[in-house]
Structures are given as structure tokens and as C-alpha cells.
């Protein structure tokens, strides 16, 4: 387990040890036009990647509210990946630039309150980059596995 950069608050307690069969849950929030299409291409190309990611589709990475990232880490996810179109390729002209700026601030904020900075990650994946998507997911999964579980609330809410 890596050390936390900011020690003011430490949710990432080093004493939390992952059980042997533990698998992280990662939420992937992908823009419809580039990254979601790219992830579809990974599928049609039958490229394999770790099964930990759960994908949520949004129109544009600029739709991703800071709230979503906090809520994810707070409730179900051990890590979040946000992915959008490459700079300059945004389907909505400039949305991904706003997303990038907001994301950097969010990352700092989460880091400040004690989350390791690798818990949330950002990538650019185009609709043509099936192999890149598989690589990004593998890398993020590796990173989160190293960080260990976040051990907060879990599911239940929606089950009988």
C-alpha cells in the first residue's frame, strides 16, 4: 500500500488489509461519442481486460459532476475512471476541456481529504482506440488493486 500524500485526513488507513479474494470495483464514466464507442470496439475486437470495471454512459465528459466521483468513492467504487474524446476532438466542440479542468480540481480536492490520487483517473480514448481502452482499464485496475479496498458502504440499497 502506498502512502497518502496528504496526511490531514486519512481515509486510506494502512491497517485495512484486503481479504485474499478481494476484487476492486471500478466505475468507468465514458463519453458516448469517443470513449464509449472505443470501449464497444474493444468488445467487437474481442480484446480482453480485467472484469472489475462497470461502465456508465454520459453524453460528454463535461457532464461528469464532481459529485459523481465523490459519490462513487463514498458508496460503491474503489476507483473511478473518467474517459473522454481527445483534446480537439470533442463531439460537443469544447466539452472535454471543461471536463479536464474540473477533473484536476476534483482530484486535488479528493487528495486533500485523504484519497490516494490514483483512485480517480482520466484518459482520452477515441472511438478508434479499442486496444488503448483495454490497456487503460488494465492499468487502472492494477493501480487500484495496489491501493486496496476503500471499505465503505456497499450495495444492499437496491436488493430485496
Amino acid at each position: 500500500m502506498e502512502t497518502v500524500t496528504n496526511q490531514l485526513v486519512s481515509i486510506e488507513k494502512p491497517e485495512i488489509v484486503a481479504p485474499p479474494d478481494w476484487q476492486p470495483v471500478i466505475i468507468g464514466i465514458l463519453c458516448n461519442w469517443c470513449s464509449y464507442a472505443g470501449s464497444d470496439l474493444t468488445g467487437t475486437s474481442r480484446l480482453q481486460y480485467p472484469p472489475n470495471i462497470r461502465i456508465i454512459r454520459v453524453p460528454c465528459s463535461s457532464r461528469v459532476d464532481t459529485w459523481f466521483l465523490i459519490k462513487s468513492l463514498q458508496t460503491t467504487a474503489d476507483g473511478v475512471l473518467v474517459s473522454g474524446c481527445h483534446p480537439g476532438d470533442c463531439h460537443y466542440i469544447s466539452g472535454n476541456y471543461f471536463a479536464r479542468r474540473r477533473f484536476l480540481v476534483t482530484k486535488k480536492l479528493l487528495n486533500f481529504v485523504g484519497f490516494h490520487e490514483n483512485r480517480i483517473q482520466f484518459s482520452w480514448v477515441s472511438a478508434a482506440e479499442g486496444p488503448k481502452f483495454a490497456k487503460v482499464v488494465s492499468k487502472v485496475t492494477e493501480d487500484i488493486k495496489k491501493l486496496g479496498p476503500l471499505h465503505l458502504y456497499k450495495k444492499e440499497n437496491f436488493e430485496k
Partner: protein
Amino acid sequence: MARVGVFVCFCGANIADYVDVPQVVEEAKRIREVKFAIDYKYMCSDPGQQQIRDAIAQHRLTSIVVAACSPRMHEKTFRKALSDAGMNPYLLEVANIREHSSWVHQKDKKAATEKASDLVRMAVAKSIANEQLHEISVPVTKRALVIGGGIAGIQAALDIADARIPVVLVEKSPSIGGKMAQLDETFPTLDCAQCILTPKMVDVASHPYIELIPYSEVLELQGFVGNYKVKIKKKASYVNFKTCTGCGACWQKCPVKVDNEYNMGIDKRKAIYTPFPQAVPNKPVIDAEHCTMLTKGKCGICAKVCEKGSIDYQMQDEIIEREIGAVVVATGYDMWDPKPYEEYGVGRFKDIITSLEFERMVSANGPTNGLPLRPSDGKVPKNVVFIKCVGSRDEAKGISYCSKICCMYTTKHTILLHHKVHDSHAYVFYMDIRAAGKGYEEFVEKAQVDTGTTYLRGRVSKIYKKGDKLMVRGEDAQIGQVVEVEADLVVLATAVSAPKDNPDLARLLGISYDKYGYLSEAHPKLRPVETAKAGIFLAGCTQAPKDIPETVSQASACAAKVCGLFAGDTMKKDPMISTVNTEYCSGCQNCVKVCPYGAIVTDEVPFGHGSKELRTVAKINEGVCQGCGSCVAICRSTAINLAGFTDPQIINEIVSI
């Protein structure tokens, strides 16, 4: 309470081989809100859809989840199935268990099944927060604006007008025609450009559905697809077109001589002029920069000789406003300036000219009576060297792209030279000969045989002067040697470049352009004539260099798009757009700044019930909003929501994993 139906697809073996489908159904049934869950071999088939339709009625379902392939694949299909069963189509959610699970976790069925169940649970949770949405219909103004009157703009305007849709054609210069009006004969058939172009120009002027506004520019575009308002600046021509007969008395007598743009500065025109004899409209304008009456108040000859009294030195620029529904941008191209090629002696040696200058010289209506002449001494050249890719495919000096037309027109130029000067000899320095196109390769081969042109493969490294000749030194890569050719005249096939004002125009229209200044299409393959902004289309070289056949095809494609847009009295629009809850809006206007489409404006509402005091709030124009969600995430008051991707919907997905 919500009653959700879940339909899990086998997709033949595509899903079933790697995901335990019955297990996914069992998991789904454990969710409190799920009242019905079933699997089927092919959900998208008609019997598959029938199961959905039946279940909706039998189980009084309130939303539907289909777990199958990507929503990008069949979302529309399943939405239609819901519609057919009388349910609002937007109550559907698709769980992508094929592209996102069975196909990417083929070695771990247990994990793939677990993931598929999670994806279904997320979709169920989202669907519970789905709302009924209805397609938006927006009224359409059936009038098109075409910007640029080259062959692209002319063709687009004629095609649209022939469908009885009014067109406003705005041309910057005094006449329509563009670069094609400057060409002599055209590849690959060598028919004369004027003969095929001028009838079309005349058609534009006389077409009852075309309003031609020459000598003008677009100042402002407001609104959204189907409902734009355009402001056009009509520059003062100082000639009353209503009374002018185009007799020409004025320009014959005008004493001021100016470089003639139409003939690439090879000869002179007057300060009052029509750009060329076949100009449309065939009325003169006064060039305010050079007319001494306008600059110094001295002269006034044209007013004296005009029998109709059409000259008006007091004329002012005029602002014209029109309501339009669609725009075709056809602003063409500029010729790239070869100045950076210092080693060629560009600017120092008079007998180096550009391809368009050569084109003007060999033109029957050109400044030299159709003969290529050396600018230095006016003699007819015998040895002519053509250099291709000047600026093109040369990242260091010019631009990295291929200008696409130079291979073909240089071939054409060797033929024209051969026709005009029988005892001449042409040399062509080239990198490649790109002759893809119907009849193009044949054209090049025949020309090589007929003209006996010497082709030398390689870049020219230097041009220097020897007596009254130019020595062209370059490499002949085929023999691996440096060669020198003695030339009387050198013709540079300079690159095609984007019009200088394109970036300004793009900003004004709200569309994007690439690093060279070419306007960007929405998709390089599947939407090559649309821009990312609905209702704005691109034709001709303003999008990328192309020849006349391709330009005309793209222009006609634009016309088809415009006609399609105007086919009904209203337009249907996806309802997944944002709306502001004014109760929550604090009026900070952060959203106004982030909207890439300028869809958000401000509005005034009363402070409270019956209050006379007003406060500012944001208001989203549903016609303009494209549903990106930028504004939703930026709003600190959570006053905005994006239909189909609301906060509750996404949060439900997050918390239900």
C-alpha cells in the same frame, strides 16, 4: 412503485457462451422493483420484441431494461418496440452485456456473469429514475444562406433553388464565379471553364428563387438550426445597379489604373471596374481604396460620362438582415504564397510564375491573348519547367498535406503549353503523380505521350540566373543524379491553402476549423458535408482542397441536406436536452460561459409570487441545445438537468453496483 421488466438476450452464442444468462435473470428477479425477467435467444428479432410488447401490457411495467448488445447498436430498435406497445420510448435502458462483458471477459465466465448482473442492476436503477420524454418539434424557416459564389456556392444555390426553396447567396467580390472563372480549359476533358461556368452564373442571376447579394460579407449569425437570423454587410459599390446598364463608358474613361486581380496582376484594371467581361452581375463597382474622387475628392469623370447618372459617390455600406433556416459555407480557397522558397529566387526572378498566373496567360480571354509570355522580356518561352508540390507536402516550408489538384492541372498545363507553343518543351519536377479519379490516369498517360514532356522525379534544390535563362537544379531520383535544366520560364504549382478569413468566419458562425484554416466536417467519412453545428453545411475547397467534379458533388450533397432539413414544416429533435429550474437558479451565468453552442441566454423572472422586482435567471433555447451536459455539471445551484442523463439517473447507477 416502479415495475421494471428485464429482458436478457443470448445473442445466439455471443453472450450465452461467456455469461450465464439464466443466472443473470435470477439475479435480476431478486431486485425489489423487477416484476418480470426473462431471457431469449435474440431479443432484437421480431419474436424477441414481441415478448417485450406483451410483457408491458401483462405486467403493467413502468420501465424496461434490455440486457444485450451496446445501446449504440439497438437502442433505437427497442425504443420503437416500447412505442409500439404504447409506452414512452425513453423509459428504456439498455445494459451492455455483450461489448462490455461477454466479449471482453471470455476466459472468466463467473466474473463476466457477475459483471452482467451488476450492469443489469445499474440499468434497472437508472430506469426507475427515467422520465417520459417527447421529441421536440421546432418550426423551420425555409430559406437557405449560401456563403461564397464559386462553383461550389453556385451549384448549391441552383440545386436548392430548383427545389423551390429561396436562397440568399452572399459573395465577397463584385462577381460570382470564383477561381473557376479564371481557368482556361479543365482537366480531365479539356472543356473550357468559361463555357460550362458562365451559363450557370447567368442562371443564378435570373433564378426566381435566388437573391444574389454580391460585394458583401456575413457579419453575424444568430439562432439555431431552422431558425437563424443573419446580418449581411453590403459594401458600397457607388454605382446604382438599378439604373446602370453596364455599358462600360465609366471604366473606359477612368484614369486610375490598378493591378488586375482577375489576371493575377499581369495587367491593369481601372478604379471603377467589372472584374471580367462575363461577370455576374455585370455592373461595375468603384474600388474605394484607389478611386481619387473617394480618397481625395478629385476626378469625378465617371459620374460625368455616365448617361444614366448611376454613379453615387455618397453611397454607404448597407446592412441587410434575413431569416434563414440553413447555411452552406462555400468560401473556396486561396493560392499559397511561395515566398519561403528563397532558394528558387521567388520574388527576385521575374520569369518564375505561379500556376494560376500561367492559367491566366494561356486563357483565351487572358491578358496575353492566350500565349504564355516571359514577364521579363515578353518573349514566348521554349523551355518551360513546371515544379510540383511547391508548399504542399513540405512541412518545413509550407504545409504537410497534398493539395490534390496540382498533379492534374500541371499535366493540363503541359498540354496547353504544347497547344500554344508547338516547338516548346516541358519539364516537370515531381514527387509523385497522383491521378486517382475517373479518366485521370488515362489523361496523364496520354499527355505524356502527346507532349513528350520530360518528367524528373525529385525536389528542386536551387534556381539561379544564367544570362536571360533560369537554371533549375534538382535531383533526378530515378538515375540518382543531380540534373540541371535551362529554362525560359518556371511555373510553380503552389499549394492550395484555406481562405485567410476562414477562422473569423468560423468563429462568427460557431463552427470549427483545423490548424490550416479549413472548416471541419462533422465526421470525416459519414458526415463529410455537415458541420458539428446543426443546419450548417460545407461545400468545396473551404473544407479541403478538391477539384471541380468533387466540389460540385459536395455542393449537390449540401443541397440535398438542406432540402431534407426543410422537408417538413417543423423539425424533430432529440428530447435529451437541458432545462433550467428557475426556482434554484441564482443567476450566476456560469452555464452561459460553458455552453459550446451559445444555447443559454438570460431571462428575467419575478422575485416571488406577485413581486414586481425582477431577478436574472438562465434560460436554455431548446432548439440550440445539443445535450452535452456541460452546463449541468458547472451549475452550483443544481438548477439545470439534462433529460436522459439526470443526476438521479446517474447517481442511481453509481450507488446500485
